[in-house]
């Protein structure tokens, strides 16, 4: 059997004395939309930060695309195709919407000082191709009319879309989404859902932290349930609803999830 795209094994991360992630183990096979759910404080965002290299891996191991990536800095992981979004949108505020996408295309255009001075023609050619690709994405996400506006002027929902469009522009192999649906109206939620499904069918693997269980139910398989820093269970939402442990820890009793 092929090695999973991402394997998290016994990962530990503590802030001072607080064990946010405490021996978490699960796998994400290539090609899935994997959900990551759990109560607040379960360690989901900390885990995403550790996998993306933003937080130090204190113990355990993270394997991605066949390599032991524990301790890799975030920029190296990004260049290897592991891209993440943030729980709160973090656009490059004073760059235009289009530039936010262009910046994400690391490795596909010469970003050196020498290039800026002496390879301007090659850069112009590469840039033309990138702009074409970026505008295609902006068109899909309904942001093309805003392409020349500073990203800070977008609305909250538009920033969410920009966040996803920018991540796609990076040509990810594995995309970590940290609560992509947070604070989003139902119509936009449906749109984001459709985008994520389409991108998944185009070959991107997702690991998605999400509190909206309806969305997780519709989109994610498998679903990892985290509680108290550990992966409590891995399976489909149907499995989880039948599991006493998961229901007690997160889903709650007495009402349909």
């Amino acid at each position, binding site marked *: 059997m092929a090695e999973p795209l991402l394997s998290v094994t016994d990962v530990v991360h503590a802030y001072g004395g607080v064990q946010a992630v405490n021996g978490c183990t699960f796998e994400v096979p290539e090609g899935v939309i994997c959900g990551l759910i759990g109560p607040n404080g379960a360690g989901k965002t900390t885990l995403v930060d550790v996998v993306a290299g933003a937080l130090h891996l204190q113990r355990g191991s993270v394997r991605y695309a066949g390599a032991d990536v524990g301790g890799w800095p975030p920029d190296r992981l*990004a260049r290897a195709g592991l891209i993440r979004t943030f729980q709160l949108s973090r656009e*490059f505020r004073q760059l235009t919407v289009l530039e936010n996408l262009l910046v994400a295309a690391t490795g596909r255009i010469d*970003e050196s000082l020498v*290039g800026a001075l002496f390879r301007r023609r090659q850069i112009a050619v590469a840039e033309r191709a990138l702009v074409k690709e970026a505008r295609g994405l902006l068109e899909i996400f309904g942001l093309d009319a805003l392409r*020349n506006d500073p990203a800070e002027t977008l609305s909250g929902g538009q920033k969410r879309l920009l966040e996803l469009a920018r991540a796609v522009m990076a040509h990810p192999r594995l995309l970590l989404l940290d609560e992509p649906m947070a604070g989003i109206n139902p119509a936009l939620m449906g749109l984001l859902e459709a985008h994520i499904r389409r991108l998944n069918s185009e070959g991107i693997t997702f690991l998605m932290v999400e509190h909206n269980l309806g969305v997780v139910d519709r989109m994610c398989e498998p679903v990892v349930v985290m509680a108290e820093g550990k992966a409590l269970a891995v399976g489909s939402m149907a499995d989880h609803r039948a599991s006493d442990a998961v229901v007690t820890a997160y889903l709650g009793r007495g009402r349909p999830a």
Partner: protein
Amino acid sequence: MPHDLNYYLATLAVYFLIYCVLTLGLNITFGMAGIFDFSYITFMAIGAYFAGVAVLPPSNVPGLQWILGLNLGFPIDLLIGALAAGVFGLLIGLVAIRRIRSDYLAMVLVAVWTITWSVTSTTIGLFNGQQGLIGVPQPFEAQLGVNPNDYVFVFIPIAAAALAILFAIAYCVERSPFGRALRATREDQDVAAAFGKRTVRLRLTAMVIGCVYAGVAGALTIEFLSAMSPNAWAIIETVIIFSALIVGGRGNVFGAVLGALLVRILIIEGTGLLPTLPDHPELIGATRNILIGLLVIVVLYFRPQGVIPERRRRYFESRKPAADPSSEVTKGG
């Protein structure tokens, strides 16, 4: 025009050209990469001193001492000054930028100025201490044999040529993917790293470019004035260059030039024309600083991005949508 006025205006032109080099360099370090380099003037001084000791002969008079003394000529001295400033900036950056971020970095860089300034002014054997370097020969002075009062006209093309090259480089950087990556790290280093940017390397490069610009400005200064002493690079000078850039518009090469014009020529030279009051010798300097402060406040209040803000670039689009009627319609809708 009377010769005195010509001479005065020509001297102003040289000061302006040199100041543009300073603001253009800081525009890359601070305007584009967002590094609060509060030691900026230090690198101007390093460039000046090293260019000076590259031109001067070895010191042999007691009480008048400096290192090196290479007896070299222009433009090698300028390159040595720029290189020294760049290397010093790289060493500082390797320690500071790799380990410290934003606000603390600014504090550390203030400390860099303090230490460098104290060491330079108290160590006679380095660059002649508090008195500084004097009598540095001017470029082509000996070869041309011009009247000292006319020398400024020789120097204008030298300074203009240096500025032209550095302006062109700054212009290319601003419009390049490199510049875009710098601006992205300025906006958010974590996110830039999350998209694969080597943020430390980018910031370090921006810091060193700024230092090289400052070094060139320093070398030009000592070549023109024949002297450089610690009085010329008090910490306030860094603040004034920051003010010029903020007023003119950070992140924009034309903003940097405009800032140099407004602050260096209009305010600093303008206040220099005020009459001196016999009992208040400090008045001109104080007026100068108050006016700079007021200008910064006014600009930040009414035009926080500066008079010429950072360019919002359109990529491969016509500048004039009015020429195309269809885009005119979308513009309205």
